């Protein structure tokens, strides 16, 4: 498989629509770590996460006709599929809210053994970002993005008024963007 090739998003989309398995292989090699990162962080269970990752790529393969280039980038579309599929699975497992928080605190990324197993990943960058975000800022972003929490749930968890959730989120993301710009 010509992994040394690179493809533009348009070439990828055209290849997928033409049912080109080489392109699909490239897509997998290129994007599976990002999508698996999302799925695993949502579910916190490697066995379930592998199954869900497979489901995500099947949805991409089978649903590429539904992707609309006008609406956004291919990566955004794929991330949404990964996040939604994983969060649906999480909900079907009937996770309680406090379990979600517990999982965030026992995040796989905080376990050094986990990081050592996957040396390809840019831990240094992540560590830098996480150091500069406050715990509350990180929690609010992760609860929303990785656990699919609603504004009400976040207000309850962080013990803040419902009306301030959006403001806190805005500040957290602005801080995140500032940090990313400095990298």
């Amino acid at each position, binding site marked *: 498989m010509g992994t040394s090739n690179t493809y533009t998003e348009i070439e990828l989309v055209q290849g997928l629509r033409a049912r080109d398995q080489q392109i*699909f292989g490239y897509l997998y090699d290129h994007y599976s*770590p990002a999508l698996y990162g999302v799925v695993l962080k949502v579910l916190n269970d490697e066995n379930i996460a592998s199954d869900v990752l497979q489901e995500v790529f*099947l949805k991409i393969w089978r649903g590429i006709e539904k992707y609309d280039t006008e609406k956004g980038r291919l990566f955004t579309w794929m991330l949404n599929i990964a996040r939604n599929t994983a969060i649906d699975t999480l909900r079907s497992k009937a996770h309680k809210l406090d379990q979600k928080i517990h999982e965030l605190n026992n995040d796989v990324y905080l376990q050094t053994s986990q990081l050592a197993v996957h040396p390809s990943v840019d831990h240094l960058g992540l560590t830098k970002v996480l150091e500069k975000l406050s715990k509350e800022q990180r929690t609010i972003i992760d609860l929303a*993005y990785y656990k699919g929490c*609603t504004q009400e749930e*976040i207000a309850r968890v962080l013990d803040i008024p419902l009306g301030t959730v959006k403001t806190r989120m805005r500040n*957290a993301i602005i801080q995140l963007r500032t940090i*990313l710009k400095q990298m």
Partner: protein
Amino acid sequence: MDVQRYISSGIIESFVAGLATDPEVRDLHSAMEQSPELRTAVDAVQLDMETYVNLQSIQPPAGVKDKLFLQINNDQSSEMTDVLAAGPAPAYEVEVPRERKPLKLVHPAWRVVAAAAIVGLIACGYYINQQASQDNEWKTKYEALVNEKETMLAEQKVFQTRMEESEHMLATIRTMKMVPMYTVTPTRPGLLATVYWDPKSQEVLLTVHNLPEPAPDQQYQLWSIVNGKPVDAGVFDMSKATGGFQKMKAVTSAQMFAVTLEKKGGSPTPTLASMFVAGKVAG
């Protein structure tokens, strides 16, 4: 449109973090269509959020890609994966202990057959996966899988026909008259069988809840009673009438239904001494 208002409201950040509600998302999408400036702003935040997500990439386990490709290749040769995806549910249902329901429309054996076929198929698929590196083996097993799939599809068709019959029956029963028939002689207490009768279509269904097993040379016979006169509505076998519903002869009118025990094949007139259950048609 006041783009600045959107930007400072925090809705963009809520949106990229997945926090925005459905109406908020729709509102933002339609606003983005009207304003390229807003769209640029949203795209910039989205890009940064994706960088954050990307930083948390993890290499997935090695086996996933192989399984994925095996699946899409099966996908292209057949719709088998859909059958597989639908597989585990019925298999699971079989494992759950089920209380006996009076209206059992599909014979349990069919569930077992379907579950067994699905389990067999999954096991076969797994085995193939294990052997994928050995081409010859792979091919043989693949052919076996295709055969098995065809067998399964045929079985599924039978199953589906049964389901359709059952669904039709269920829909019909809702509009039918229900006539419970109880014990008529004190020496045989606690007997019960129920007739469902549609005076319009003249259709009659019978289900047996409790009747003693007849001798091998005997059969139960159903009668409709019209103005005091019994009219033959057919004989029935216990195996079908106790497991589900037995379709009987058409009945044009009836004030009562009764069941007698007769010689095998039935009698032209009922043996009143061996009447087991009877019930009046309501209304």
